[in-house]
């Protein structure tokens, strides 16, 4: 809901409106929260309701049998309710609750129990049967197939292994040396590779070849476009090492850019091989005596989903060869994210069709790779036995538990018996497994009777940490009865948190928490910011991701670093623009900044530029971010669509003055009294997130304040003071705990008991705000659960 303006900020020679504004008394009104801390001060809508209305309508709007038996529910807006109350309530004394008072009581009623959203909120939360989210489905399929392959090599180093050959062929006999290359981005001119390797001189300039091997790490899920830029023969394989993604062995015409597109699942490594050969191919031209110098370049580039092209950075390359990943490409309808996390408690025909298509896709994949996955050969005598064994294991993994005899009959025996041949039997088994509710749903068959069944526990742990099915170790622990205590669950959680799947999930959550999970368009006014371009925007993204990746991987994984760190990753280009002291071509590195100017990620230029218009900052977007994401405040959408006041209409006002002016009406103030003073402390950052000391010749005013849920007013001047307050505030901690819980567990936190959020917050504080320890506690809490008692349930016989 951002409105971008492409209007120049005019120069001004204004007056001191801002000073007058700073003295304004700010009213706080009409903001309710979901938090366990909800404890508003007197004279609120609630007080009015309890004194004037509850006598007939009941303390929670439930109605009173004798007087007004109907519950207070409906779909009128707050405005309509206000008007109605002013006109006709209370019934015996209409006209005694009007104006502001009527509005406050209407707001309380609306948000307390009247509106549809309030009703949904008030329903007692429970752990619901949920299907796999789209992300969980794709990861579950990948992990369903993975154990049937040889595990990939793990290599902590970055870059690709380059093998250098002294002829155009990549034959073993012509291999001269091997070395780790950080990235593939070479201009050999008319020379030999000229690396520092002692054997480099053996490679002649006119004919040589290089093969790079290793893996590429896909950070996000989506379409990746790979590009090999070369004037020579080249081939590129990604994930599937049998079929090249790019085959430009034939160089033809002047085309030097060779592209191939691949859908990849984020957080996983994919085997990669790149071949480059400088020479004429085909028949060896023996007659040519002269070997005139020829030029050669080669670079390996990509476009990550929704991003611009770049040489694949070193941190996404590793010399270890990963195993091929089975990636489901079938499209799925998106998950419901109306509550901020994927709630998978409903299905649709679209979704059902998608699971059918995906099942057929996976069945085809299995058919093609059957002998490899089942560890057999086309003419092996024990092939039938191996195929059955493969299906047995596959079924166990798909259902995350051993099959009982009846299920074995249904899912395995009967399919083989009914099929025309063995391969068809496998095909039927795969289709049936992947269409089965036992694969497609989480918490299936979990009741208060068997809630802590070890296989349920194993699934909760793995979906919670990885968004995927349990691995062999975890299933084994379930089988051994080693998932019965919090301690035992914590041991598994610790182990699993060192896996890339965990880091990927947490990273996705943090990006969403920062509201940048979708790549924002940071296009800025080119007249005002001529040097700010899409390359710089992508550099900023890298900078943010580097920070997050480092935090996630660190031992402390201290949440407060997100708010308080005084360091940032910069490269030469960013350094130039944001005024740090690095050479122009410097690679990314951590740079300390003046602590009073910036704080953690809050003032990271990527976020500052995102929470801004194309030419001016946006205190409102910044304030909304702090209120919602950090403090967990509920904000209603604006009562009417408002076009931001364009700077040109008030050329003398600073951004702060303009925002204050536009949001001055009482109807705006109910929310903006909260939003604006949380956004103003960021006024030192312009539309590109660059630090500034003045705007339109006026010194920046960066003071703001916040009225806590306890009613205490806290003031701050600038982002550092705001960040310090947030880092210490239990409101921030509590909101973060709730959001993280929903992001990881994907069930309402209240379903695990009213005190769960608070208990986890206390744990969070005690554990020095370690994200990992907090998540470990969440996993223990949600995996070993006591569900509210249910009626009419029977446990399935096993």
């Amino acid at each position, binding site marked *: 809901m951002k409105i971008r303006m492409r209007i120049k900020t005019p120069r001004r020679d204004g007056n001191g409106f801002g000073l007058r504004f700073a003295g304004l008394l700010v009213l706080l009104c009409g903001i309710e929260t979901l938090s366990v801390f909800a404890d508003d001060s007197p004279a609120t809508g609630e007080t009015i309701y309890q004194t004037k209305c509850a006598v007939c309508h009941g303390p929670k709007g439930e109605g009173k049998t004798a007087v007004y038996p109907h519950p207070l529910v409906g779909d009128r807006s707050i405005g309509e309710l206000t008007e109605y109350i002013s006109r006709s309530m209370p019934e015996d004394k209409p006209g005694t609750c009007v104006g502001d008072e009527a509005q406050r009581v209407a707001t309380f009623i609306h948000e307390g129990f009247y509106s549809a959203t309030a009703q949904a909120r008030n329903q007692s939360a429970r752990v619901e049967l949920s299907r796999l989210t789209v992300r969980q489905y794709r990861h579950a399929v990948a992990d369903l197939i993975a154990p049937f392959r040889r595990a990939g090599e793990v290599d902590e180093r970055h870059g690709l292994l380059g093998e250098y050959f002294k002829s155009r062929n990549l034959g073993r006999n012509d291999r001269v040396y091997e070395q780790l290359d950080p990235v593939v981005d070479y201009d050999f001119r008319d020379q030999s590779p000229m690396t520092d390797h002692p054997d480099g001189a053996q490679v002649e300039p006119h004919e040589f070849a290089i093969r790079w091997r290793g893996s590429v790490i896909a950070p996000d899920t989506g379409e990746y476009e790979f590009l090999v830029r070369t004037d020579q023969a080249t081939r590129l394989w990604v994930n599937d090492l049998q079929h090249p993604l790019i085959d430009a062995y034939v160089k033809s*015409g002047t085309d030097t850019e060779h592209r191939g597109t691949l859908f990849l699942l984020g957080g996983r490594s994919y085997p990669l091989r790149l071949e480059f050969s400088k020479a004429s191919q*085909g028949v060896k031209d023996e007659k040519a005596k002269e070997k005139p110098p020829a030029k050669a370049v080669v670079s390996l580039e990509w476009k990550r989903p929704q991003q611009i092209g770049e040489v694949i950075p070193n941190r996404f390359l590793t010399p270890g060869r990963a195993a091929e990943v089975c990636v489901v490409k079938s499209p799925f309808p998106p998950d419901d994210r109306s509550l901020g996390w994927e709630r998978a408690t*409903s299905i649709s025909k679209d979704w*059902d069709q998608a699971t059918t298509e995906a099942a057929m896709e996976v069945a085809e994949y299995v058919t093609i790779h059957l002998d490899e996955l089942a560890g057999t050969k086309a003419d092996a005598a024990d092939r039938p036995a191996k195929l059955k064994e493969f299906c047995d294991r596959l079924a166990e993994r798909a259902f995350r538990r051993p099959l009982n005899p009846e*299920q074995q009959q249904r899912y395995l025996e009967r399919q083989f018996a009914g099929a025309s041949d063995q391969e068809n039997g496998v095909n039927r088994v795969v289709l049936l497994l992947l269409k089965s509710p036992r694969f497609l749903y989480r918490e299936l*068959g979990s*009741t208060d009777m068997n809630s802590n069944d070890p296989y349920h526990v194993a699934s909760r742990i793995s979906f919670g940490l990885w968004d995927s099915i349990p691995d062999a170790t975890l299933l084994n622990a379930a089988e051994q009865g080693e998932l019965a205590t919090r301690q035992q669950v914590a041991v598994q959680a610790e182990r699993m948190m060192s896996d890339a799947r965990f880091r990927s999930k947490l990273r996705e959550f943090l990006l969403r928490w920062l509201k940048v999970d979708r790549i924002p368009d940071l296009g800025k006014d080119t007249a005002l910011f001529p040097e700010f371009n899409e390359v710089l925007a992508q550099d900023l993204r890298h900078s943010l991701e580097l920070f997050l990746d480092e935090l996630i991987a660190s031992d402390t994984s201290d949440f407060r670093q997100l708010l308080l760190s005084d360091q940032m990753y910069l490269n030469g280009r960013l350094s130039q623009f944001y005024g740090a002291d690095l050479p122009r071509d410097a690679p990314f590195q951590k740079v300390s900044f003046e602590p009073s100017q910036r704080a953690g990620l809050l003032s990271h230029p990527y976020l500052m530029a995102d929470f801004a218009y194309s030419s001016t900052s946006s205190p409102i977007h910044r304030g909304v971010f702090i209120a919602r994401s950090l403090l967990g405040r509920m904000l209603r959408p604006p009562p009417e669509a408002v076009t931001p006041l364009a700077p040109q209409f008030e050329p003398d006002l600073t951004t702060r003055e303009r925002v204050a002016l536009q949001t001055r009406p009482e109807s705006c103030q109910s929310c903006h009294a909260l939003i604006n003073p949380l956004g103003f402390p960021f006024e030192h950052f312009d539309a590109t997130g660059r630090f500034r000391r003045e705007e339109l010749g006026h010194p920046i005013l960066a003071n703001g304040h916040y009225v806590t849920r306890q009613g205490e007013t806290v003031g701050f001047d600038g982002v550092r003071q705001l960040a310090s307050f947030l880092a210490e505030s239990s409101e921030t901690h509590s909101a973060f705990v709730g959001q993280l819980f929903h992001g990881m567990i994907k069930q309402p936190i209240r379903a695990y008991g009213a005190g769960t959020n608070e208990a986890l917050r206390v744990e969070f504080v005690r554990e020095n705000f370690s994200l990992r320890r907090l998540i470990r506690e969440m996993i223990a809490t949600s995996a070993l659960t006591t569900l509210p008692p249910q009626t009419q349930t029977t446990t399935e016989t096993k």
Partner: protein
Amino acid sequence: MTQPTRREFLRDLGLSAAALPFILNLPSLGFANQTARKQRLVIIFSPNGVVPKTFWPDEKGADFALKESLAPLEPFKNKLLTLHGVCDKIRGDGDSHMRGIGCLLTGVELFPGNIQGGSDTPAGWSTGLSIDQEIKNFLQSDPATRTRFGSLEFGVMVPDRADTWTRMSYAGPNKPITPIDDPYQMFSKLYGRLKGQENLKTILDDLQDDLRKLSASINPADRQLLEEQTTFVQEMEQELKSTAAVASVGHAVPDLEPGVKEAAENMPRLSKMQIELMVNSFAADFSRVATLQYTNSVGDAKMRFLGVDQGHHELSHNADDDEASQEKLTRINKWYAEQVAYLAKRLAETPEPGGSGSLLDNTLIVWTNELGKGNSHTLDNIPFVLVGNGLDFKMGRAMDFGKIPHNRLLISLAHGFGHRIERFGNPDYCSPGVLTDLT
């Protein structure tokens, strides 16, 4: 999920991506045109030129005799044309074998590139699309002639490397099309989805049983979700039933002999399998254009099953007075003629679905080669033999055009489909246009 466009839909089918529900929603696919005549084109390639004295008939006109190389085509003599005097005039980069195959169906020069031939300058891919693709695009642009695949590219023993010598069809400049020389791969392209659908039908009962069982046993508050899924599964079953006619494609899915490996000694079996698949895909109207490429330009298969121990290309370099080699080369070309004859026979005995006559009455087979003659590497007198009545050419003749560029023949193929282009490939070799003598 967004609704796919028709183009995406066709692409999905062709690339075997998710297609089931879309097929279900569009039962008429592949049977778009049941009334108008379905014209088809097959282009068959064999390599290394021919032995002119055992290949070309001595006579001209309707009264001619087929010589040894073409003897297998005797049953189709009145449905056949031999076209002497059609020459590949395209020059530029690349050796004769490269231009021979790369310009054969494109009629235009190769790009400069990095593939060095035995002589001449190195070259890359063709600078234009090939006539089979031109005709495919023409047919696919009209809903009345559009088919599921548009064109199918078959191969037999095509080496597993992509270079100028191994590619004949081009979707456009620098866009060579890889022929599928593995019959099992072609089978799964044609029928893989259908097989999956057949299997899908067979599992639904077991799926519904388990859904029922689970619904009965779980928490009532959660039951609704499973009940909804049960409904969806029932609906899918209904849809699968109602489109059973489409799924069964109107003919028996061909049974392929299992486990035939790609090896020179299996060429006869592979060839037969590919021809069966081609005939079946015509009967199902999956496609109206097909190519069938035996080996590759410079193909060096050792056809021991013919009693020939040397590689074909090696043999083709031997001199005219080496009678033993000439005889073996004749034997090889006669074997290729047998393949053409087998395809013609299978087309002739398959009735045109929904029409009159046989598939051969509506199909033109064009058999050709990258060279006129192996040991001279000439691109003159490219052996063009046409079989079948698909394009309404006046068949049953031995023709001699003197020395005309082959672009005019390519133009004539398009005209046969009512696609009246005036030039194709290099315009310098296109006038005066279509070969009027053919019709």
